[in-house]
Every structure is written in C-alpha cells, then in structure tokens.
C-alpha cells in the first residue's frame, strides 16, 4: 500500500520526471482559453442579439444561419473546420502581401475557435433574456425621450442581466469543458497533457482520474462563484421556484 502511494507521489511530482507541474500548466492553459473564449462569446453574444433583434433582414438571416449551423453541428467538427479555414485564410492574406505563412499562436487560435462556437449559444441566451423584458418598460423609457443607447444601458441591460444569468452560468461551465476538445486538434491544454502523461508513464487510470478531479474542481469552484454573482444581481427580487 505504501509503495503504491509512493508511486503515485512520484508520478505526480511537480518537477520532472513527475508530471504534476505539466498538468498544472495544462490546467492554466485550459483556464486561459476558457476565460478568453468566454469573453469573446459574450461580445459576440451581445452583438448577435442586437443584430437579431434590431437588425435588418440580411443581418438577421446571416445571424440565423450562424447560430443554427453552429448549434446543430458537433462542436468538434466546427472547431476543426474553423481551425483549418482560419489558418488557410490567414496564410492566404499573408501571401497576398508577400509574407511567408505562419503558424498561429495556439492559445489565440483556441480562444478564437471556442469563442466563435460559444458565441452562437450566447446569442440565443441573450435573445431569450431580452425577449422576456416587459415591452411596457422599454416603451416607458422611450416616452421619456431616452435615446437608444441610454435605454439599453439604463433599462434593458439591468432588467436583462438577472434573466440571462442562469444561461450564462451554464455557458461558462460548458466552455470550460469544451476546451478539452482542443486536445483532439493538438493544443496542449489539460486534456492533451494528461494524454501525454498517461502515455509516457503507462499509468492511464491515475492520470485520467487526476484530470477528471481537476476539471471537477474548476466546475465546483465556478458553481460557488456563479451562485454569488447570481445572488448579487437578483437582490431585491422574489425568489424563483
């Protein structure tokens, strides 16, 4: 038994030949990608929602195709397509200007592809939230003579935020887990680092368990934080359910 624990301690040691340090670095990359992608998704989501609600017919059609296609095709396939298409497109542009092709920074590429995918889901979350605002409130603001941006900032956004929060919390949890898909493309975040560690040491079970625990910790800590945020924005409201 003691030998078994020593084995585990050796394989998870923070300095090589232990893999603990690499796993934590992988976790850090995963979190960086998740934060970046989530921020991008929020921006796309707000923009997409505004386009869907206030845009002209062409904008609406384009956004409808974007959200429907991304939500109906498996994330893994969208990620691969975006990654290849993005790289090719960038190198095509660079070639036009007489530059040599480059390898895109992996972190940035990961953030972009995950962000674009989650942006589609985020658009729908915001659209659902804005549709749940009583029209009278917005009309009241209009009749006070508030211009659009003031209306948006003072009325729509504050009413919308608590209603969007459950969906947004869910989206954050999905984003952190979706970063694992990048392992299939070859980004060395937590999942791929784990695979390499497991392959190198042959302790498959141990390393996948450790990875699962790390992801679980991210989720559980996120849950606590998200609950706090939700409570903050719901203060003064009746408790739902």
């Amino acid at each position, binding site marked *: 038994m003691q030998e078994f624990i020593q084995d585990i301690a050796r394989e998870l040691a923070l300095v090589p030949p232990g893999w603990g340090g690499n796993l934590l670095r992988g976790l850090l990359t995963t979190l960086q990608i998740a934060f970046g992608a989530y921020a991008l998704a929020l921006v796309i989501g707000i923009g997409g929602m505004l386009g869907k609600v206030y845009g002209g017919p062409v904008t609406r059609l384009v956004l409808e195709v974007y959200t429907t296609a991304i939500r109906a095709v498996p994330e893994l396939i969208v990620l691969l*397509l975006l990654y290849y298409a993005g790289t090719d497109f960038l190198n095509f542009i660079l070639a036009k200007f007489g530059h040599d092709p480059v390898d895109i920074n992996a972190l940035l590429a990961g953030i972009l592809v995950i962000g674009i995918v989650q942006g589609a889901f985020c658009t729908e979350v915001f659209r659902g939230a804005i549709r749940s605002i009583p029209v009278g409130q917005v009309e009241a603001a209009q009749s006070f003579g508030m211009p659009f941006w003031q209306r948006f900032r003072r009325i729509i956004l504050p009413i919308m935020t608590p209603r969007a929060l459950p969906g947004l919390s869910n989206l954050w949890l999905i984003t952190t887990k979706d970063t694992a898909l990048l*392992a299939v493309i070859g980004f060395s975040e937590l999942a791929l680092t784990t695979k390499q560690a*497991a392959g190198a040491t042959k302790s498959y079970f141990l390393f996948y*368990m450790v990875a*699962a625990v790390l*992801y679980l910790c991210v989720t*559980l800590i996120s849950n606590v934080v998200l609950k706090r945020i939700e409570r903050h924005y719901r203060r003064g409201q009746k408790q739902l359910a």
Partner: protein
Amino acid sequence: MDWSWIPQYAPKLLEGLWLTLQLTFLSIFFGMMLAIPIGLVQVTGPKWAARLALAFCTLIRGTPLLIQLWLLYFGLGSLFPSIPVIRETWLWPILREAFPFALLAFTISVAGYSGEVMRGAFQNVSKGELEAAQSFGMRPIKVLSRIWVPRAIQSVLPTLVGEFIMTLKATPLAATITVFEVYGVSNSIRQNTFLVYEPLLLVAGIYLVLVLILVAVFRYIENKMPQRALH
C-alpha cells in the same frame, strides 16, 4: 471542391452512420433507464440514495465527456488485462472492443445530465395528481408508471430533447477511441485523399440533417401528447 471520392467511400460512410445512430439511440435508451431512478430517488428516496444520485450527477456534469471516455477506455481498459481472471470470462471479448466503452461512457453521460433534468421533472408533477391516483386505489408502483413518470417526462420533453441532441452531437468523440462512426470514417477519408475540407463538410452536413430529423420526430411526439397549454 472535389467530391469525386463520395461513391468510393459511400459504403464506409453508411456503416459509420449506422454506428453513429446505434451509439446515439442505445445510449439515450439505457441512459434514460438510469436517469428515471436517479431523478426519482432524489425526490422521494432515502437520504443516502439521494446524496449518491446527486454526487453522480455532479461528477458527470462537472467533467468533460472526452475525459470520461478516455478514463473508461484507456484507464479502465488498461486495468482489465492485469486481472487474469477476466480473460477467462465471457466479458473478455467485449472488453477488447472499443464500442462497448463508448456506449458505456455515453450512457452514463445521458444518465447524469438527464437525471438532473428528471429530478426537477418529478418535483414538477403536482401533488394533487398523485393523490388523485392514490385515491383511485392505485398502488404506488402503478401511480409511478401511469401518472408520475409520464407526467414528469411530458413536462420536460423539450429539455430532454436538448439533451438528446447534445448526445448525438457528442458522438464524434468516440472516434478518439477508435470507434469508426461517421466522423471517424471522414478522418480516414481525409488521410487517404489528402482533402482537408470536403469530408469534414460532408460530415457537418450529415449531422445537420440528423439533428433536424431528431427535432422533427420529437416535435411530432410532443404534438401527439394531449396537453392543455396556452398558445
């Protein structure tokens, strides 16, 4: 764009498609078989069972499916050969295949996500309906099978459909453990033909159609259910 490879690889793609469908529907079926008791014990079961079910749902929903899949296939799969007894049993031929591991991983994933949905669903059914059933003299098991489960599923059908679509969309992950479902087939086509986009686009199109069919089927079922609702 070059699509001339399609006739040559059509049989392979159809095989992959069949595997995708099998994986999706079997895991939804077995997953729901587990999800119903997992949801139910959290509402009416003994405390230890409720806690266990909640822990299971948290664990499954808190870790990426890809890691669960790899943990089962590479992790558990690497432990089995070291237990010689297993080689003698009927289990051994099954444990050497990848498909059962994929099916198991997807089943517990459906069980975890839908179990959480079913918990809310069982709570949603109003007490009056259950009491009415009881007062008709139905035994608890009959109340469950005739009133509680059907009413619970009915109330969350749209959410469940969302979960089922997630399951369908997760099946490409099985390709990472050598299950040659439709995405796995497209990967080998890409390696053989050196095409980057076309096979991926075809698979994207196939999934798009599958999702639309699934949505249409469940909308049909939803409409079949008699329900008083505001429209």
